[in-house]
């Protein structure tokens, strides 16, 4: 391990650091210092803005965009919800894997015992493109080493929702490609465990980054689309589902 470098020595490096003009060892030392030092972080940010002003401009090369577009797929995946629903109806929760599936199939034949608790969760979860605090909290949770990640995917793997759950049961949906639902419908989040799926909240027609609370011991999460207001047990097979990944 490199010995700890003093604050003023780090400061002297910040200009060169912002221009990628330091040695790998110095870079490591600066980057070890920055998280604890708002003053140095702010100086680096200033140098980066200044450098950006010097960088110039010009037309964006078009051929490169074609290659980028090819690499990320042919445009945003579009989903025909009616078609998806018909297909899901033929194969209800069965495609959801292993432990998650066991819980989910049970739900299809039972209203469940947790109705009271479920009804309390039919409130709208905190959703928040406009809420910087939530966005930040979700961002921090997504890189928290103690957080467990859950990637929910649709059966055809087109839809994808990423979530994290912290050890205290606080969870965030921080990335999704769900389409906005028509009026009168809502997405609803379900916690999957040993019993029936438990509603973790109504997400609204166009979720974005959202916070929710679940039992930290859940096995997985799933999302259905329901009539607005939510359901106490899932009416339809899930659009997406995924298991908790071990940390």
């Amino acid at each position, binding site marked *: 391990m490199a010995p700890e470098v003093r604050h003023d020595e780090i400061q002297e490096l910040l200009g060169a650091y912002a221009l990628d003009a330091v040695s790998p060892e110095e870079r490591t030392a600066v980057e070890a210092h920055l998280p604890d030092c708002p003053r140095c972080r702010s100086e680096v940010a200033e140098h980066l803005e200044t*450098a950006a002003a010097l960088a110039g401009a010009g037309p964006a090369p078009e051929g490169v965009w074609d290659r*980028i577009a090819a690499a990320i797929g042919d445009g945003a995946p579009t989903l025909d919800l009616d078609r998806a629903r018909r297909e899901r109806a033929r194969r209800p929760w069965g495609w959801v894997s292993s432990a998650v599936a066991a819980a989910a199939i049970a739900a299809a034949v039972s209203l469940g015992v947790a109705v009271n608790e479920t009804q309390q969760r039919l409130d709208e979860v905190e959703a928040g493109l406009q809420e910087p605090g939530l966005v930040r909290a979700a961002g921090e949770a997504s890189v928290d080493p103690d957080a467990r990640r859950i990637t929910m995917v649709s059966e055809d793997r087109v839809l994808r929702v990423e979530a994290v759950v912290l050890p205290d049961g606080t969870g965030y949906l921080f990335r999704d490609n769900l389409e906005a639902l028509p009026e009168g419908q809502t997405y609803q989040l379900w916690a999957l465990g040993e019993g029936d799926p438990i509603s973790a909240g109504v997400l609204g027609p166009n979720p974005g980054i959202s916070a929710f609370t679940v039992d930290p011991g859940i096995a997985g999460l799933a999302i259905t689309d329901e009539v607005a207001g939510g359901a106490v047990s899932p009416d339809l097979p899930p659009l997406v589902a995924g298991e908790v990944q071990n940390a």
Partner: protein
Amino acid sequence: MEDVGDAALVLAVARYRTDGLAEVYRRHGGAVYALARRVTADPALAEEVVQEVFLALWRDPDRFDPDRGSLRSWLLAQAHGKSVDMVRSETSRKRREEREARLRAESGYDIEREVVDLTVAEGVREAVGTLREEERRAIELAYFGGHTYREVARLLGEPEGTVKARIRTGLRHVRVRLMGAGINGA
């Protein structure tokens, strides 16, 4: 998408919106390319850098933190880092030697001319014009030349500590001038 701010665009990217990424590219792809081309002195490598920068944003949009600066400066910092990696990598050694020979041959490798070439705003050019010659040289060799401050010191025959300090004070001077002219970095 055209009316949306950069931070909201990144959220759109985080939701796998390709039109969000396309708009980020439309706004900043040109600057990213211009910088990568300047540093690598190679259009093909520069295109590779541009591609990597935007694909990295697509794969990992939450690496951009809007609280830490503008999207443009972040994208350019990514592009600069990748460009520098390319010119410093073993496989590019020959290219780098050719490049250095060319830079040395251009005795007046000159940031003022660079920014004119790159059609940077008048205010930026003026701000750079107020730098002391030695500050300007240190910044241009580090930023556009892709050299470490130690290499810059060797190239200029100056002490390392001096060059390190000049880069920092030079950037600060430019910033003060830009702010005085009502231009922030973005």
